């Protein structure tokens, strides 16, 4: 037996069987490496979608369980739900304002802190600290900073002789307030990614441009920006997906108010499912959000892929 399975450099059937057997064994063995992860994703990431799809066609609540099958009624209701429309508007407004501001700020901070001056490492750490803090703590602290009567920001306004603002109770200021707090927290993450991208740009490009007499703006416009394209796209893609799912700052700063001015879609889903005991409809709205996000990420991935290497 042993002699037959010793590999030899001939095409004898025994050598072939050995290879085949070893391959099959390794394949089965290899499956065990990936199995736990696959099971996790199946149960905790894919099945919930199937479940949501199913629950969205039923009258379903956590307390009452499944009642009647109602087919597409939840989706028809969604089409005519003014609050859903409002929450979609609020969510899009949040993303469209927050994203460009955050990326522009992160780019400026990254370029600023990428100088070879002592103390720049420290300032990068300072900018990054809010990133490792939780969104809950950041929201809670910012809610107090923006507090109408004893908040830090109103104290600052007063110092400059400006009138007091009720940031979180004024429908015109509530969403900008939430955006400010979340940019303060998130900008450090984008910054550190862009800094890593900047370090990847070979210095010779700058040297060549300087020899050609490029101004600082031209350096930025024609060297830094094009070579940072991949990094910037990555930042934009990930931040878009995260921003669309904003929930915590709304939950702990404004509870969706005043006048639904901060009722983002995930907060609405939460309200539907857990406050109004309408899990079936909450599942339907989750499915709608899922489709929107998939469409957005697929579009963005197209952009990412059409990119050139450097």
């Amino acid at each position, binding site marked *: 037996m042993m002699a037959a399975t010793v590999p030899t450099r001939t095409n004898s059937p025994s050598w072939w069987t050995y290879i085949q057997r070893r391959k099959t064994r390794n394949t089965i*063995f*290899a499956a065990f*490496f*990936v199995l736990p*992860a*696959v099971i996790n*994703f199946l149960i*905790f*990431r*894919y099945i*919930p979608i199937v*479940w*949501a799809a199913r629950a969205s066609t039923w009258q379903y609540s956590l307390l009452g369980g499944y009642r009647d099958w109602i087919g597409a009624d939840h989706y028809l209701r969604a089409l005519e739900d003014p609050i859903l429309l409002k929450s979609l508007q609020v969510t899009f407004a949040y993303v469209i304002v927050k994203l460009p501001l955050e990326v522009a700020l992160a780019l400026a901070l990254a370029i*600023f802190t*990428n*100088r*070879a001056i002592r103390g720049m490492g420290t*300032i990068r*750490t*300072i*900018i990054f*600290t*809010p990133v*490792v*803090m*939780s*969104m*809950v*703590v950041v929201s*809670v*602290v910012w809610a*107090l900073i923006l507090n109408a009567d*004893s908040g*830090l920001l109103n*104290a600052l306004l*007063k*110092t400059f002789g400006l009138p007091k603002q009720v940031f979180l109770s004024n429908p015109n200021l509530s969403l900008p307030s939430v955006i400010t707090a979340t940019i303060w927290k998130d900008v450090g993450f984008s910054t*550190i*990614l862009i800094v*890593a*991208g*900047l*370090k*990847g740009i*070979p*210095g010779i490009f*700058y*040297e060549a441009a*300087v020899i050609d007499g490029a*101004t600082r703006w031209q*350096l930025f416009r024609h060297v830094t920006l094009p070579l940072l394209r*991949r*990094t910037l796209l*990555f930042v934009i893609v990930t931040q878009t997906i995260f921003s*669309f799912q904003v929930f*915590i700052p709304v*939950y*702990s700063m404004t509870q969706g108010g005043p006048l639904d001015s901060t009722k983002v879609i*995930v907060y609405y*889903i939460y309200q539907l499912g857990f406050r109004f005991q309408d899990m079936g409809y909450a599942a339907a709205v989750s499915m709608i959000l899922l489709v929107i996000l998939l469409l957005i990420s697929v579009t963005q991935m197209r952009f990412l892929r059409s990119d050139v290497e450097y």
Partner: protein
Amino acid sequence: MSAASQQRTPRSTLPNRIVGGFFILLAYLLITIIFLTPLLWMIGSSLRPSPEVFQYIFPLSWRTFVPLQFTLQNFADIFGISEQGRALGFQFGRALLNTAFVSTAVVGSSLVFNTLAAYFFARLEFPYKNLLLVFVLGTFFVPQEATIVPLYIVVRQLGFADTYWALILPWYASPFVIFVLSQFFQEIPKELDEAAIIDGASLLGVLRHVIVPNARVGLLTVSLLEFQFIWNLFFWPLIATGRQELQVIQVAVATQISQREIAWGRIFAGGVVASLPVIILFLALQKYFVEGVALSGLKG
């Protein structure tokens, strides 16, 4: 950090440099103030009686931030050590322990299972491996917050809602960690594997003796990210658990403010307790972390 990768200033005459230096200093100060003030205010106010927070908020001065009447009362309250804290039912100590336990359990199990999976994708041969990769990375595009309500329905059906399992099991594998780790693993020369295999190492042996020792920075980076991700989770624990014995620190902090707590000192103390462990961890391991992010291809 090579000098070549730094930004270059085209013309640097002396007056230009002085003006430039002034603006850099100004920007430096402004950034520091914007990012540090909320933190300092939180820490300072957590160490003073609540009335003092309100008393010195205006006019703005050093008194706004530095406690004049230093006290640890707020911390005693939220940990339920003081009479008042007990009466209000604060149990931040328990919440901290829960969070530390859950975060450690997730990081531990995730290190095992994600490393195995990343090794599979980086090195092993398997029929239809690319399809599996699509299956794994596809979860990347399943928005987490959008599917948390359906996830709760599944966990409830499986019967472990409102247990520690609910806080740990859904997170023991992560598409993000698998992706980043397999990138790290691919950087390791394949010749090392082959040498080990010739020496008689099994697949597991290669993983243990070649891959893991050569990917320490990567493993540390993802562990750190995972730890802060789980430590800071809020929406999932809020929904998945209801009993106070299972309450995690973020939920404890948020509950405080939704009760319209007027004792700001306690709110700030809660914020400090919830943030400090992770901040300290990151500061201590910062060197490896920054290196890890730069190496990981996270930059795109």
